[in-house]
């Protein structure tokens, strides 16, 4: 999974960068509460220290300078004033919240699937990605579902968050108004690699999002004939079409299947559970996997060939290798991507 880092300047300020239409509204409410709180805190702490200094006991037997026990008008006053102030906070926060919850009719829809411990974003037209890509100045509606436990989609730069509860769809909308790459976190604890379930939201400048969509999945953009030609000789294929006026954009995104497989390992979050150096993790290592004898918990065994790897990806918990748990989720993946992954695994001797 790739992580674009926040730039240092973004973090120097107290609030993170504002990149959605709702963010300035949230920050305005935040700052109102902040200044009110600061006023009351300085008042309380200031009086406290003033009283400590002014009225400290100078000799052991010293009596208090006042014997007052209460003052009802004063007490009513300091009950009523805070009540009025919090009413403002409540109403202000509620109004913005309703804006956050009410998506415009014409919003661009993206389906989101969450699982332990990765995200997949599905765009209209059969395109998918592990990062959230959106056009600038366009309302976007995320329809989110979870395969397993509760996750939560949190994009600090947009000031939005919504739990993804299994068994129902969770909707979240926003309109990004500043191009850039912003962190996207899972905010609801979801197990071992919860903290690694993070990716980015990429806001594209005007017109750039459509270009990104065209070349987002270069492998699947190939026709069957083109794919055959690519598999027959990937490097020659890329060289041949690189400068093609129509097809060049996609061809230049292609690499050898081995290299694409290596990138897919990151993108599909395989890295969280499978090492490539023989080290132990949640799942078996990929080093020396291809062609090895696999011993299963149920006593069976098989030689790890292309069919075995394909089946292990599509139906991850059908056969569990000895010493491991059935912990792998079904990750959305296309046939051509599986072939690239197999090509990569074959290189890990």
């Amino acid at each position, binding site marked *: 999974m790739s992580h674009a880092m926040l730039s240092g300047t973004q973090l120097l300020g*107290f609030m993170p960068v504002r990149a959605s239409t709702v963010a300035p509204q949230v920050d305005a409410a935040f700052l109102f509460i902040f200044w009110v709180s600061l006023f009351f805190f300085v008042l309380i702490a200031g009086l406290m220290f003033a009283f400590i200094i002014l009225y400290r006991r100078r000799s052991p037997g010293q009596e208090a300078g006042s014997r007052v026990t209460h003052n009802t008008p004063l007490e009513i006053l300091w009950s009523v004033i805070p009540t009025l102030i919090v009413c403002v906070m409540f109403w202000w926060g509620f109004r913005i919240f309703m804006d956050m919850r009410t998506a415009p009719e014409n919003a661009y829809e993206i389906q989101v699937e969450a699982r332990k411990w990765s995200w997949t974003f599905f765009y209209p037209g059969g395109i998918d990605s592990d990062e959230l890509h959106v056009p600038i100045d366009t309302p976007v509606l995320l329809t989110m579902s979870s395969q397993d436990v509760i996750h939560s989609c949190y994009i600090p730069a947009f*000031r939005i*968050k919504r739990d993804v509860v299994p068994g129902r769809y969770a909707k979240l909308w926003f309109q990004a108004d500043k191009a850039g790459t912003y962190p996207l976190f899972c905010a609801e604890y979801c197990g071992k690699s919860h903290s690694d379930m993070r990716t980015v939201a990429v806001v594209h400048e005007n017109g750039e999002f459509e270009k990104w969509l065209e070349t987002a999945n270069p492998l699947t953009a190939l026709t069957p004939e083109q794919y055959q030609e690519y598999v027959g000789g990937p490097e020659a294929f890329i060289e041949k079409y690189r400068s093609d006026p129509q097809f060049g954009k996609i061809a230049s995104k292609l690499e050898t299947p081995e290299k694409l497989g290596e990138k897919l390992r990151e993108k599909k979050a395989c890295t969280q559970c499978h090492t490539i150096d023989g080290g132990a993790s949640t799942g078996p290592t990929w080093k020396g996997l291809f062609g090895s004898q696999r011993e299963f918990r149920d006593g069976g065994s098989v030689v790890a060939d292309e069919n075995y790897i394909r089946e292990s990806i599509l139906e991850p918990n059908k056969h569990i290798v000895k010493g491991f748990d059935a912990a792998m989720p079904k990750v959305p993946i296309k046939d051509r991507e599986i072939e690239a992954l197999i090509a990569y695994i074959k290189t890990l001797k």
Partner: protein
Amino acid sequence: MSTLNPTAAISAVPAEHGPGEDNYLTHGRGFLSWALTLDHKRIGVMYLVGIITFFIVGGLSALLLRTTLLTPGAKDVSKAFVTHDMYNVLFTVHGAIMVFIVIIPGIPAALGNFVLPLMLGAKDVAFPRLNLASFWFWCTGVVLLLSTLILGGVDTGWTFYTPYSTGHAMAGVIPALFGAFMLGFSSIFTGLNFIVTIHKLRPPEMGWFKMPLMLWAVYSTALIQVLATPVLGITLLLLIVERLVGLGIFAPELGGDPVLFQHFFWFYSHPAVYIMILPAMGVMSELIAVFSRKHIFGYRFIAYSSVAIAIFGFLVWGHHMFVSGQSNLLNMIFSALTFSVAIPSAIKVFNWLATLYRGSIWLATPMVYALSFMWIFGIGGLTGLFLGTLATDVHLHDTYFVVAHFHFVMAGTIFVFFGAVFYWWPKITGKMYEENLALWGALLSVIGFNITFLVQFVLGVQGMPRRYYNYLPDFQPLHVASTIGAYVQLIGFGLSILCLLRSLARGKPAPMNPWGAATLEWRTSSPPPWFNFHESPPAEDPYDFSLVQYDPASNSYVYRGAAQRAPAAAH
């Protein structure tokens, strides 16, 4: 209640006693004289020892967490000292120990047990056997909760959210749930006992509005304990049944609803926040008045605000679910109700401040803790406003802002707990402690606490999610600062505990009333005799400090008696 009054023979004994006098500590010897005791003071002391022990365990687990967070996390986790899984177990254990084992029973079961009957001038609580059962339930709960560490571990967080806890978590969830279940019953027993004790064992001349405010707070707390804790018990049992036999209450694939669990859980666990904070507020009212040597300001407002907090506290649980998919209407209602709790909390702070005004402020260790809590609770309470406001909560929910907020509120009560320990220590042990060492401990732990958690507010505002083992490198400087604060706290709390141990070993004998308090527990010897009082003292205004006068000869305060007192304070 004739059994509660001292017999004629005892009341014939003179009021002052030397150190060799029979007291509750020397009354019986041997393990069983403690393990099977029905004496509220001994039960309180056993609770105190247990709670401080687990405060250390919970604190050290937090130090391991903070140490792990010094670095943002490497790809090569096999070389890390604390792994992903260990980290998740550690924060679960830290939370569960601190909430269920330490803070919830902290002030009521340890100190409340000790002082509640004394404050009433009574011999014991209403149900001494139930009190002992409560302690042994607590012990059983502790053993069960910690047995999870050898029975597979638990990595759900102290919140046990479904469906993670039912279908995905480590193998040790069930023992941990049983542990929390038992601790819940221990808490119910304590609460029930206190309610009955306050109703039935108040001396005839002590009306409701003559009670020390500590008792109002403990009473309000007990109401929550008795009414809310059973819901937690049922919820945990449902969770156990679902995990064992697949009953479809919470699991979506069986037709259950994971958010239902959150409603059940927070229906207890939000009021539980007030179980933690109300007794602390009660202690605050005592400490602020005694060490200002001035009548508590606005007694009735403080008393009513305790009850108001207890009632409103039941109606705000939904604010934990603003982003869970709860309907807009529910969110609106819960947000509005949440703000209603802010008002009685603010009233208390203003009343404490007004008590300080023109008082005679003595900066002894308990008072330093109390003043620290005013600072800490000020921050904790005010940052709650950001979380009660819907729009800002969406951004801050499940980030370090929330972590910092609830530490400032809930963990802040630890400072009152320590303030209360130092305040009643002379009464409990009969020994004084070293003032300088105690002050250093208090100051360092307060400063460390503020460093640790103030920076976490900033982390949260910037979007750092909680329960993260790895994090973006941009957050590292603030994490390092927070960890440094945690180490300062280690030194501070270490010194405080050391100070208490030194006092046990070589503390000077404590006078009857070292602080000049007017509540009844200071009208018996330190430590108190087995039967608490040789003569049942008459209950008077607990905040009329003209009743006790400084005595330079003994460097302590003596009761002057109603007959010689100055003209009554102006009302």
